[in-house]
């Protein structure tokens, strides 16, 4: 049984309209007979059959518009065994193998001769505006080229250092502008989502007080250090919150460098980083915390301190703030907030009691993670703080 299909009647023809049949079922036809008229954009064209035999069934009806290759009729070819039933429409022949796109060989960028800084024009313009020496900026663009956000970050750091060391007026405005640029960019680019949870700190504080008794006052550990340790450990369980959103994708960081928000007496904010917080003991964390806060407030921070934190932690408990909803520092993808530890009624197995309760919050970039992962992070944080001795 041969199929008479909508013929291709021209280079740019994809569909045709069956205008009329010149045959009916039962008619015999021979190769070359005109058995139908098909309408194309150009005109109605007489269409010949290529088989000799008997028309068995007309599938397409006059007026019907069909793509090229669509079956129009069945013809029993003379001298061919009649199959049991009509073959259904044969699928169009296999599509030509998809040609892989031929990309022009990407022209290689000229290698960087020493001494020459590679920075985009926009980065150069911004650097000039914010008084940044490009030679001191770490670029994250192609071949280490410096791009806008590299300059923004460097500006945020540089003017903060200036602010700490210099009189309030002039330095702060530079820092203010840099922070403004970063915050504006965060708001513009990062779709934030916010989560909060209450954590019973009774056990943790009690444990800390006990362990502090064995330490001299100089070595005393503040609750803030314990919270940083908990954050670092929780990030090990939910790594997607630790890294950067670059070139439209999450670039996870294998290291955990906690950016600690440190406010300055003269106004303004600095975020020095505690490097590899997950690999440090509570005492080591406390020492580093003391070190960077002291140096920040004394204006003796190094640029390496402030450029590569992978997540930011802010603690406004001292100022009486209970719940902090922070703004993420681009290109990071999360920010953890801690509020004031407050005495609260707290039910445990139906028994009402009073507990020191801490509100922990998470602001995260919805491009990188979803609420489920954010919730799992806060849950891990809370669980870890119930067993302080294991931190």
């Amino acid at each position, binding site marked *: 049984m041969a199929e008479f299909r909508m013929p291709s009647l021209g280079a740019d023809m994809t569909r045709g309209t069956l205008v009329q049949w010149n045959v009916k079922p039962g008619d015999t036809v021979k190769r070359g007979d005109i058995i139908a008229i098909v309408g194309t954009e150009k005109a109605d064209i007489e269409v010949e059959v290529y088989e000799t035999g008997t028309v068995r069934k007309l599938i397409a009806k006059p007026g019907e518009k069909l793509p090229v290759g669509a079956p129009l009729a069945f013809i029993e070819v003379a001298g061919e065994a009649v199959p049991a039933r009509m073959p259904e429409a044969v699928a169009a022949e296999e599509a030509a193998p998809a040609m892989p796109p031929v990309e022009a060989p990407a022209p290689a960028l000229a290698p960087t001769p020493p001494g020459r800084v590679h920075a985009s024009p926009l980065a150069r313009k911004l650097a000039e505006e914010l008084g940044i020496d490009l030679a001191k900026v770490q670029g994250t663009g192609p071949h280490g080229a410096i791009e806008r956000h590299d300059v923004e970050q460097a500006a945020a750091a540089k003017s903060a250092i200036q602010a700490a060391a210099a009189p309030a007026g002039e330095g702060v405005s530079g820092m203010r502008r840099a922070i403004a640029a970063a915050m504006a960019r965060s708001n513009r680019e990062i779709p934030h989502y916010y989560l909060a949870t209450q954590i019973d700190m009774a056990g943790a504080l009690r444990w800390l*007080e006990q362990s*502090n008794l064995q330490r001299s*006052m100089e070595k*005393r550990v503040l*609750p803030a250090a314990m919270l940083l340790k908990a954050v670092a450990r929780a990030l090990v369980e939910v790594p997607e919150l630790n890294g950067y959103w670059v070139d439209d994708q999450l670039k996870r960081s294998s290291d955990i460098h906690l950016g600690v928000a440190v406010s300055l*007496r003269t106004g303004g904010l600095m975020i020095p980083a505690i490097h590899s917080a997950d690999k440090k003991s509570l005492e080591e964390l406390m020492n580093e*915390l003391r070190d960077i806060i002291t140096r920040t407030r004394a204006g003796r921070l190094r640029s390496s301190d402030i450029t590569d934190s992978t997540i930011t932690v802010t603690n406004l*408990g*001292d*100022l009486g703030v209970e719940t902090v909803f922070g703004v993420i520092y681009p290109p990071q993808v999360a920010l953890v907030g801690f509020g004031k530890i407050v005495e609260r009624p707290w039910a445990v197995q139906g028994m009402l009691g009073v507990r020191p309760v801490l509100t922990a919050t998470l602001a995260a970039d919805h491009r990188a993670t979803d609420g489920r992962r954010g919730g799992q992070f806060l849950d891990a944080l809370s669980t870890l703080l119930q067993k302080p001795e294991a931190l």
Partner: protein
Amino acid sequence: MNEASIRQAIADSLRGIAPEADLDHIAPDANLREALDIDSFDFLNFLIGLHSRLGVEIPESDYGKLTSMGDLVQYLLAK
């Protein structure tokens, strides 16, 4: 230790932390931390300063007794 030396120790300990603080104008019953705008970190350093100057141990459990300047002075006098 008399009150004068205690106040001096307090002043010296605060200098590194809140240089612009003006102790004379802080009311005895005012909350020390708010008045001086110092956070828990500064407060620990302040206590460490007092400890080194007055040789006084101040356990965390006593923090509750040090909310105002007056309390602080009384506490230190008692030590």
